[in-house]
């Protein structure tokens, strides 16, 4: 069985946030919600200062704490490893948000879907996209499951201008993802949390 995941090459990332925007355009998340984002950090002392970028998204953990703590069973893991939320079952307790070490769960507050980015009501685009959300429930990155199911890659992957994101199956030992991870010493975020993320990073 496949285990979908991603490798992000930090050597290639230029911090342009195209992934952030592509994700917002694809998923139509309301104001203040970002499934994909780039964490920016300044390292060093003047004059030897550099800015580093860390693109983050849901890690679709194999041992996802968000799924373990969900009391209603709204958070579930697909056979291909994608962590999903069934909004019909979600009660909005936010236990998953507290449990996710990567802070990639998003709560849709009451009233959030009543206004778009412009001040007056919803744009036609927002009116269509906001139908995918429900106030008082949790939402998260699905690694563009709706695209993946059609044989396409996630929006953040196809948009990345430097091709820093490589999407695929983590399962095959000699697959492109596993080869990259082995050859370039791929690592995951917060390994001490033992969540077994499906998003790896390369910086060597």
């Amino acid at each position: 069985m496949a285990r979908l995941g991603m490798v992000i090459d930090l050597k290639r990332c230029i911090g342009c946030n195209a992934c952030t925007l592509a994700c917002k355009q694809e998923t139509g998340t309301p104001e203040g919600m970002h499934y994909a984002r780039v964490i920016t950090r300044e390292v060093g002392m003047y004059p030897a200062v550099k800015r580093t970028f860390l693109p983050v998204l849901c890690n679709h953990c194999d041992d996802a704490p968000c799924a373990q703590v969900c009391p209603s069973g709204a958070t579930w893991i697909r056979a291909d490893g994608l962590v999903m939320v069934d909004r019909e079952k979600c009660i909005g307790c936010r236990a998953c948000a507290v449990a996710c070490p990567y802070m990639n769960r998003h709560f849709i507050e009451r009233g959030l879907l009543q206004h778009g980015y412009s001040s007056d009501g919803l744009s036609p685009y927002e009116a269509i996209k906001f139908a995918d959300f429900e106030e008082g429930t949790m939402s998260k990155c699905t690694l563009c499951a709706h695209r993946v199911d059609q044989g396409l890659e996630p929006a953040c992957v196809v948009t990345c201008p430097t091709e820093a994101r490589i999407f695929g199956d983590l399962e095959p030992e000699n697959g492109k993802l596993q080869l990259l991870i082995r050859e370039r010493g791929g690592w995951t975020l917060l390994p001490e949390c033992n969540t077994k993320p499906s998003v790896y990073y390369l910086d060597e």
Partner: protein
Amino acid sequence: MTTQSIAIAPHRFAFGYYRQAWWNWLIGAAFFCGGLGAGLFLISLLTRHALGMLVGYLIVVVGKNTAHLLYLGRPERFWRAAMRPDRSWIARGIWASGLFGVSGLLLLLPYWLGPAWQLPPGIEPAVSAVAIVSALFIMFYDGFVMNTSPAIPFWHTKLLPVLVLMYAALGGTTLALTIRELRGGGGAVLDYLHHEEHILLTTNFLLLSFYLLRMLRWAPAARETARLWLKGPYARVFFGLVLLVGLLATLLLSLVHDRVQATWLVALIAACEMTGDFALLMILLKSGLFAPQTAKAYVQGR
């Protein structure tokens, strides 16, 4: 760069520690009511005090559950929270609350509606056992709700359920004492409860100190939270309300009360203890920090 120089991130696009912002005062109120009410009910049941049982029962069934319902994003679906007791402590808590609601009511009915509602002798011990176990569960399960995930290192310790349980026992004992004294009761039970309260106040002080010392040697995010408690923005709440009012003032007033019998003093002791109890839960919730989003900085800090 060392972990000491990592600040709290102002937003999610910045690097640093991230504040826990989801569980707010309503969750704090629910945890507070759960611990206090279940503790009071349990102590009153064991010492056969009907009014204490009733007050404890109402604090849990009305107070705790109302706070939880007000907090939920979709309160009309609250029943779904009971669906996964196999893996979720929240679901287990819902089951315990349900069992507590039924068993507590069955035990309370004879006191208020008359002996006709008395349970058959063969059933009453079983119902009492269910009430005791479920009340005990409600007293500590919040600790497991918080400590299960590794996301917030300050909570991710086995000490947390113990701390929550001990504070629930302290709150229950103090309120049981208050109700008994205000009703004009006395005797050996009061002396026993006073003694128990003094022991719990001392134990909780030691436990809290040990907890903080442990956190100062825990993961960097836990150390940062401990620093916020001791020197940062939560220091006034921690030293002022949790330690000074919640433990020290409660203990001193309780010792004074052994010599000076006064109704206002009894009420003041209860108010002090509950203030400290609630303040502790609130800073536990509000000061929880997520670790910075990287592997390497985290490893450096260890």
